[in-house]
């Protein structure tokens, strides 16, 4: 990590600042994000409300800070689920090969045929919206990339001497996979997970914007923007700030992911 790319540094700063906002939300937000104040409806940004207020007089900045909590936790939990599912399917396919590999690889092909957003919406239609459902559904529809990565990695390693040596001393399949094979593929998985957080935040905000994700009154960047549509041309701050927050956060995770990719891939030229 000698010569950190400037863009990567930007990514790290964004990720850290947003994480801090999410963690310390109660100390940063000056107002209660749910406090309705009908006396100050749709106020433009001022010293009292630095990002203005929404149509119920709630402080936009406080809602944004608490929204960071929601958006980031959806991103992390969803990616956690997708990485776990991807690693399990990928290592089974890569290690055992044969019919297990055929079945899993076909399953991946089939899952990739569905427009992910359609699959997510259909599942929400059946299970209902809400933050927990969103996390699980995004996770279970985005594991295929990680599975392919791990499968390819294990496929290229399973005949190597160190695996044979482990087998010779009597290590179980489970131990070989978890202790010897998976750790070798963690670099690319970390890259893919970082980019995955960005993707999950985008998906969650889109769903919440459509009213099918995080449900009001819980604030999320996406569902704050739902209101932006009805206040278009009247209250620019409701449109601008949440969108910028999503854009910058996703950009930050993407840049960090690219930085990590460079880091794990020293052969690639800058």
């Amino acid at each position: 990590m000698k010569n950190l790319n400037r863009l990567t540094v930007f990514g790290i700063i964004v990720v850290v600042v947003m994480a801090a906002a999410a963690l310390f939300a109660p100390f940063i937000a000056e107002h209660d994000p749910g406090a309705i104040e009908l006396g100050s409806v749709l106020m433009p940004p001022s010293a009292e409300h630095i990002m203005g207020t929404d149509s119920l007089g709630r402080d936009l900045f406080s809602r944004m800070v608490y929204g960071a909590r929601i958006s980031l936790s959806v991103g992390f939990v969803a990616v956690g689920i997708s990485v776990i599912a991807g690693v399990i399917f990928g290592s089974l396919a890569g290690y055992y090969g044969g019919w297990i590999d055929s079945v899993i690889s076909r399953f991946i092909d089939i899952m990739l045929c569905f427009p992910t957003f359609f699959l997510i919406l259909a599942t929400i239609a059946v299970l209902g919206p809400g933050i927990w459902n969103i996390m699980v559904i995004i996770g279970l529809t985005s594991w295929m990339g990680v599975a392919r990565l791990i499968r390819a990695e294990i496929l290229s390693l399973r005949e190597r001497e160190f695996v044979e040596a482990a087998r010779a001393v009597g290590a179980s399949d489970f131990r070989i996979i978890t202790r010897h094979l998976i750790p070798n593929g963690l670099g690319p998985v970390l890259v893919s997970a970082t980019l995955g957080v960005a993707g999950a935040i985008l998906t969650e905000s889109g769903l919440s914007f459509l009213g099918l994700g995080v449900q009001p009154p819980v604030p999320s960047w996406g569902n704050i923007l739902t209101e932006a549509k009805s206040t278009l041309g009247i209250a620019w701050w409701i449109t601008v700030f949440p969108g910028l927050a999503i854009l910058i956060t996703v950009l930050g995770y993407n840049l960090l992911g690219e930085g990590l990719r460079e880091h794990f891939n020293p052969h690639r030229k800058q």
Partner: protein
Amino acid sequence: MVNYIARRLIGILPVLIGITLITFFVIHLSPGKPTRLQAEMSPKISLEAREKLDKLYGLDKPVHIQYWEWVRRLARFDLGKSFVDDRPVSQKIGERLPVTIAINVLSLALIFLAAVPIGITSAVKEGTAYDRISTVFVFIGFAMPTFWLALLLMNLFGVHLGWLPISGIKSIDFEDYNLLEKFMDLARHLALPVFVSAFVGLAGISRYMRTSMLEVLNKDFIRTARAKGLPENIVIYKHALKNALLPIVTIIGLSIPGLIGGSVIFESIYAIPGMGKLFYDSVMARDYPVIMGVLFIGAILTLIGNLVADVVYAYVDPRIRVSGR
């Protein structure tokens, strides 16, 4: 070539079965029966009527028989009837599909026409200001929430400047227009949706084009071409471009599900009567037959898109069709 296509078509069969299985599985995830929700929404429906509904949709039978009957009806293009207005789902999708396909084809064309030159130029001018600016643009494109972009553009061109209409695909008095006016009207209505749907793909594909071009420019045959004194223009646009375009065909094929999925967002923002809007409305109304139908058709469209991309790739790159996959 025929051989290759035949092999690909046979390979599709299990994927097709898989698509029906997943579609069926998703809709039957619900703890109760799909008709229960419909019945709960209108309290007028009695227990007796409810059982009738169950029978109508075959929900009183075991799951595997339900699946089998659904697939049999599917084979006859019978996707069932909508819960909302009782019209055949295939008909409802049929009237929405052309709009969505038209927008997606237009935006694919736009992506291709813009991304290829951007990619080539930033590869050729690697490391210059142009390359750096286009890199920044690409990263912003990747991170842009489409619905936000749609809102901003709607605000700018629709509300503030008043240049473009903000919803629907044609004006109310569309029928009275002459041909040119009709064309202009459609173009004005479609400008924003097509741009929004192309934006994200544009970023991705110009990036791939750049990488692909850089790779080709490092190949030996390019050095040979330069060494024998060919003008740089011919080296780039004749020798390098042809080879650099190959992977882009596949990438465009792979971007189809994203485009179709994205149609839900911009179609519901711009109130475009396409498949995405239909899907959104049916999700809101828990109209399961339509949801199932659109999910299935969306996957089939992706499958066809990928198949076309593969066949085109095999056509332009003989190595593929000879060596198999």
